[in-house]
C-alpha cells in the first residue's frame, strides 16, 4: 500500500551518461520534488524538479509542450518499468522518500 507524501521531498535521480554530460553532473542528482494535485510526487512533478534545477535537460526526456516521454527514453525504479505509466501517476513511495532512485534510461537500440 502506498502512502501520501504531502511535502516537498528530496528525491534521487540517476541520469544516463549523455544527460549527465549535458547537465555537467556526476553520480546521482538529488532534487526537491513537489507533490502533484493528488498530494503525491508524480513522474511529472519529479521531472519538473529536475528540469527546474537543470534547465539544459528540457526537451531531452520529454516533449517541452506535451510533456510526453521521448520514444527512446525509459523510466525505471524499484526494479519496475514505469515508462508506460501516465505522467500523473505517483512514483513509488521508495522514490518519493528517497530510499530508491528514479532511473532515466536511454533505451537499448542500435545493436
Amino acid at each position, binding site marked *: 500500500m502506498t502512502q501520501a507524501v504531502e511535502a516537498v521531498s528530496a528525491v534521487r535521480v540517476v541520469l544516463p551518461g*549523455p544527460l549527465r554530460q*549535458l547537465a555537467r553532473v556526476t553520480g546521482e542528482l538529488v532534487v526537491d520534488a513537489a507533490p502533484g494535485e493528488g498530494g503525491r510526487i508524480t513522474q511529472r512533478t519529479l521531472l519538473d524538479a529536475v528540469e527546474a534545477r537543470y534547465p539544459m535537460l*528540457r526537451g*531531452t526526456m520529454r516533449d517541452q509542450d506535451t510533456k510526453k516521454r*521521448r520514444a*527512446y527514453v525509459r523510466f525505471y525504479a524499484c526494479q519496475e518499468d514505469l515508462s508506460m505509466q501516465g505522467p500523473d501517476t505517483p512514483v513509488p513511495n521508495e522514490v518519493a522518500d528517497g530510499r530508491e532512485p528514479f532511473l532515466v534510461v536511454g533505451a537499448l537500440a542500435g545493436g
Partner: protein
Amino acid sequence: MTPSVRVLVGTRKGAFILTSDAARKSWDVAGPHFSGWELYHVKGSPVDPDRLYASQSNSWFGQLLQRSDDGGKTWNPVGNKFTYDGMPGTHQWYDGTPHPWEFKRVWHLEPSLSDADTVYAGVEDAALFRSTDGGQNWQELSGLRNHTTGSTWAPGAGGMCLHTILIDPTNHERIYVAISAAGAFRTDDGGATWKPINHGLRSQHIPNPEAEVGHCVHRIAQHKAKPNTLFMQKHWDVLRTDDAGDNWHEVSGDLPTDFGFVIDVHAHEPETVYVVPIKSDSEHFVHDGKLRVFRSRTGGNEWEPLGNGLPQKDCYVNVLRDAMAIDSLDECGVYFGTTGGQVYVSPDGGDHWQAIVHDLPAVLSVEVQTLA
C-alpha cells in the same frame, strides 16, 4: 595578428576544432566536443568569429543547441524549443499520404552577416527558424512552410530537411534556402514571403520533371562578389543561375557523374567551382574508387579532376552536403570531410591536398573561419 584558420567539424560522434596558421600544413586538433552526440553543423558568426553555434542531437534525447563565446574553448546550451507557428498541418509522406509536420533536428545554422546574436536554423521537417537573442529563443519564419505548395513537399531519403541557407551579402533581406526534396526558395523581404526558384530544374523522380517544387536540391553555393549567380548540386545535375534563381541551366558538362552533395565557390574567383562527384544515388561513394574533387574555372561545363594527395584507389567514401568549405586567405584553401572520417585541405585552391585528420567519426559538416 597573423592570419590563421579554424575548421569546425561536425561528426556522428562529436565536434572537432582544427586550427592552423596560414600555411595550413601543421594542425592542432581539439575535441571531441559533445562526445557521443551527432553534430550536424557548427558555424561561426562572421561578425564575431568567437561566437560559434552548434547543433547537437541524437535519437534518444533529441535536439540541443550549443553556443560558444570564446571560439569553441567552452560551450553552453541555449534554447532548444522549436515550435512550428500555428497549426503545423501536413506535408506528403514517402507514400504520398499526408503526414503531420514534426520537428526532428536542426540540420544547418546560419549566423547573420550583421548581428552576432541573430542566427537562422534550417530544420527537419523542413522549416526556417530565427533567433535574435543568441540562440535562446527561436521563432519560425512560417511564410516559407505556409507557401501554397507546402502541403505537397515530400522528404528525400535523408528526411525532409532544410539544409542550405544563404544570405545575400549585398541585401540581407534576400535569403535563399534549399529543401530536400522540395527545392530552392527565395525571400526578398527578410523571410516574410517566399517563392520557389526551381525553373530549369529537371528531376526524373517526380511525375512532372519540371514541376514548381519536388526537386531534391542537395546544396547551393554563392560567391559574395556575384550574389545573383548561384551554383547548385542537385540529386543529379549541377546547375547555375545568373538571375538569383529565377532561371537555372545545367552545367554538369564533362563530369564523370553529376550526382553529388557538396558544391562550393572559390573565395576570390567567382567562376571557379568545386564539386565531388558521387557514383550514384544508390551507391553513395566516389566514382571509380578514387577520391577526386572536380574544379571548373569556367563556371561549369568544363571540369578537371583534382586528386593530388587524395586516395586514388580502393576509396569508397561519401562527402555529405555540408561537408565542404572555403577559406578566404590570399591563396584560397578548400576543405572537405568524408564519411570515412578524413578531413582534407588544399591550401592552393585544389591543386594539392593533405589529410588534416584521418580517423574521425563520419564527418557531417565542415566549416572554416579565416581569422585575421
